[in-house]
């Protein structure tokens, strides 16, 4: 890899950006260029959180991020979340709490919650975590179970 080639690291793998058009959203690069379909397209306007990925550890909307804007950054999608010790606990908590109905919003919630724990630590209160998950919508309205998953993930990590 030469210094002037643009790339983004996705789940530990370097993906070149040279052939990616400037207007392409990171969401589309992930889903259609490299085939990682775990990241979901919900609204494409930043209102639902289904497309949340970690960029350098921080939960970020991939629908409002041009692929080139993530140049040089480390992106983690839900497919890579199991490689993260915090992410593994979050996934297990969602499973234990049966916090999945249709499942479309689940990757966004799992990735966002993983990022929140990494950013703010596992001592953060459940109510504060839930407030910070306010940008993630569950159209099945399965919030009670998701709330239990958040509490359970926090217990697992403490």
């Amino acid at each position, binding site marked *: 890899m030469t210094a002037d080639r643009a790339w983004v690291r996705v789940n530990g793998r370097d993906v070149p950006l040279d052939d990616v*058009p*400037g*207007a*392409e*959203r990171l969401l*589309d*690069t992930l889903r*259609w*260029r490299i*085939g990682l379909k775990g990241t979901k397209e919900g609204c*494409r*306007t*930043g*209102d639902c*959180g289904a497309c*949340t990925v970690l*960029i350098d550890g*921080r*939960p*970020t*909307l991939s629908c*409002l*991020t*041009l692929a*080139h*804007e993530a*140049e040089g950054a480390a992106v983690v999608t839900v497919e890579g979340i199991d490689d993260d010790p915090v992410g593994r606990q979050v996934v297990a908590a969602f499973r234990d709490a049966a916090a999945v109905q249709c499942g479309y919003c689940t990757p966004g919630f799992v990735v*966002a919650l993983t990022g*929140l724990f990494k*950013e703010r630590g596992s001592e953060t209160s459940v109510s504060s975590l839930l*407030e*910070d*998950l*306010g*940008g*993630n*919508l569950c159209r099945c309205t399965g919030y009670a179970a998701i709330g239990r998953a958040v509490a359970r993930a926090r217990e697992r990590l403490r």
Partner: protein
Amino acid sequence: MPPVRGSPGMAEFSLVAPRTVDAAIAELRSHAAHEAAVLAGGTDLLFDLDHGRAPPRTVVSLRRLPWRTLDWTDGVLTVGSTLPLRSLELDPDLATRLPALAQAVRAVGGIALRARATLGGNLGRSAPASDLLPALLVLDAEVDLVGPEGNRTVPVDRFLKASRETVLGRAELIRAVRFPEPRPSAYAWQRVRPVNDISQVSVAAAYSPRDRQWRVALGGVPPRTIRVPDAEASLRGARPDAEEVAHGADRMGRHPALVGDRRASDEYRRRLASALFTRAVAAAVAPGGGRP
């Protein structure tokens, strides 16, 4: 490889990311004004590009400029224009020194949107219902600009002209926003959903220990977020009494900018403006200086 699909209306444009401020200015100067757009975080711009409200052929990204900064010096906060709002919100001193700004930042989208959105972008796009502009007005934010004619600093009240109109000149960029002093302050809003929604009306209030005057701003009104001098004049001193607050609330509710639209009726907006004023002033003077 499967074809890369976007949304049906997705815009085509070329993206350039200059490595220096001079190169960014030169790039912008090389295009007609309406053919180039500046990208900071992109949360507002990309929506407009997709929905045909902004059809530029070139998008100039600021991502390589060294403006993702935050600095406190002697109580003065300077925020680089491309610092993500999420980084600003996670600053440990923000909520105690500039509570209105901390609350306003938290009112913008969700955390994953704030990972992209920036203070510079919010100012440059200057949407009439921006949650940040009322706080910037009452905190007397100053906007540092850099452009072909050199640098200048403009108070935010002068920076804003109308809905999505600012004093930014051709090829001029917002470099940083400065907050001159910590102030007891608060930001209060009303909307249908608490997160990821547009405020129907919002009110920011701040008391300046330096000149012992209140500043009050009203957001979500046409044509732009404004200061409300009559409501400010009702409040005297650091701890206004109930009568002063009631007087100010009455004046707030009579402001002629409170008109009806699809998000709220004029009557509802007037009641909201009064109630939010009362709430913001109460929160600003509460112990701890601004937790609503």
